[in-house]
C-alpha cells in the first residue's frame, strides 16, 4: 500500500471516449490531458487554481483541472474544450466568443468558455453583475472581460428566444 512508485489504475470518460491506464497518482487531470493525451486545448496558466485557464467539466460541473488528481475521479465524465464541438460545429458559446471579440491572445479562452457553459447551466446569468461575479474565477490578462460578458448575454438571449419559440 505504501509503495510510492506504484501506479494506480485510472479510468475516465474524456469527451465521450474511455481512457484507461495506470498512472502515478501525482499526475493531475490537467497534466494528463496536456502531456499524455495531447488535449492541449485545456491551458495551464498558474497550476495552482488561481487563474481558471484549466477549467473543464467533470460530471457536468466546472472544476480547475490543475487541482484534481487524475486517479481520484474514477469513471468520471470529463468534458474539455475539444469535446464542446465534437463534429466541428461550434457550440453557441464558442460562436458568441468570436462574434463578441471575447478574447485576444486566446490562452484563457478555453477556460472562459468552459466556465461560461457551466455558468449557463447554473443559471447565474440574471444580470451583467451576476455574470461578472460568477465568472471571476477566470482571469484574463488581455482584459477581454467586456466581450466575455457580451458573449454570455448573447447566448442567454438566444436560449431565451428558443424557449419562447418552443412555448409558442
Amino acid at each position, binding site marked *: 500500500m505504501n509503495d510510492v512508485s*506504484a501506479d494506480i489504475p485510472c479510468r475516465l470518460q474524456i469527451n465521450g471516449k474511455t481512457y484507461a491506464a495506470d498512472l502515478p*497518482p501525482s499526475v493531475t487531470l490537467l497534466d494528463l490531458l496536456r502531456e499524455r493525451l495531447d488535449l492541449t486545448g485545456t491551458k495551464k496558466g498558474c497550476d*495552482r487554481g488561481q487563474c481558471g485557464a484549466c477549467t473543464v467539466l467533470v460530471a457536468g460541473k466546472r472544476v480547475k483541472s490543475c487541482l484534481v488528481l487524475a486517479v*481520484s475521479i474514477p469513471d468520471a465524465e470529463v468534458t474539455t474544450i475539444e469535446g464542446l464541438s465534437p463534429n466541428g460545429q461550434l457550440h453557441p458559446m464558442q460562436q458568441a466568443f468570436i462574434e463578441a471579440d471575447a478574447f485576444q491572445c486566446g490562452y484563457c479562452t478555453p477556460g472562459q468558455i468552459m466556465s461560461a457553459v457551466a455558468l449557463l447551466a447554473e443559471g447565474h446569468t440574471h444580470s451583467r*453583475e451576476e455574470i461578472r461575479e460568477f465568472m*471571476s474565477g*477566470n482571469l484574463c490578462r488581455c482584459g477581454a472581460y467586456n466581450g466575455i460578458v457580451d458573449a454570455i448575454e448573447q447566448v442567454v438571449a438566444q436560449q431565451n428566444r428558443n424557449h419562447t419559440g418552443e412555448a409558442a
Partner: protein
Amino acid sequence: MRRFSYSRPATLDEACHSAEHTRFLAGGTNLIDLMKSDVERPAHVADLKALGMHHIDEQPDGGLRLGALATNADTAAHPLVADRYPLLASAILAGASPQIRNVATNGGNLNQRTRCHYFYDPDMPCNKRSPGTGCSARGGRNRIMAILGTSDACIATFPSDMCVALAALKATVNLTGPEGERSVPIRDYHRLPGETPWRDNILRPGEIVTSIDLPPASFGPHHTYLKIRDRLSFAFAIVSAAIGLQIEDGIIRHGRIALGGVGTKPWCVPAAEALLEGKPPSHSLFRDVAERLLQGAMPDRDNAAKLRLAPRVIERALWQASAGTPQSQTDKTIR
C-alpha cells in the same frame, strides 16, 4: 510534488488507521496546491471520497448536519442552508471561485492552511512549515498577515470565509479518530499559533472531520457577511465580519460576531458579543463592540491598514445586520 502512495479507504475506520505521514484528500484544492509548492510532503495520501459523508440533513433539534465531504457549492446552494443559514451561504459564496467551490469540501475548508507568502515559499524560513526555522513574515512583507492571535513564532492569517460564518453560527465539528468520536465547538477547533504554529487545529493523528452541526437558526434577516479584499472578487479577505443578531422590538437579545482576515484563527470575543445583549443598535455601542473585538491587535510592518479598516468593517456589518440588509456577494455596493 514528491511521490506518494495513494489509497481510497472504503471505511472510516480504515481511513482513521492510515499509516503515519498520511494526508487525507477530500476536494484537494488546498492539499494539491501545497504539494505542488513542496509545502506538504505526504508519504501517503488517503482519498476520502469513497466514504460518503456528503449529505446535508435536518437534525431533530431543527439544526442541520453538513457532511464533511459535501462541496462548498452544494452546501451554499442547498435549500435548507440557503433558507435557514443565509449567513453561511453568503460566506461560502464570498470565497474562492465557482470552480473551487464545486470541488472544495466543508471538511477541507476547516483544514485549509494559511496563504502567508513565506509559508508557501519553501526557500524561506517559516515555523508553520518547518518548525524552528523562524518567522519570515515578521518584519517582512506582511500586508496580508494577522493582527490578532499572533505570536513571536507566527503571524499567519487563517484564510477561510466559511469558517468565519461557522464561528458566528457556533457550529460544532464532529470528528472520528482511532480513539473514537468526539465533537468540538468550532470556536475551539482552530488553534492559536503560540509556540507551535505548525499545529493549525486540534485534530489528533488519524482524526477525520465527518460533519459539521449547525444549531437551530435564530437570526432571521439580521445577519451579514461583509468581506473587504483587494479585488472585488476571487481574493482572500483583508478584513471580513460574519454577524448574526437576534433582535426583538428593536433590542438586540444576543449577537454573534466572528472576524476573518485579521486573526490567526476565526476571531471571536465572547465579551464583545455580550456587550450587545439587551441594547438597541447605536453608534456608540457598535464602536465599543469593535474596540473590544480588536483589543490587543498588534500590527507588524505592512498591515496597519487592517487595524484601521477592521473597526469600520465591524461597525458597518453590525448596521447591515441590525437593519436586516445583509451584504450581497454580487452587488458590490456596500450599504
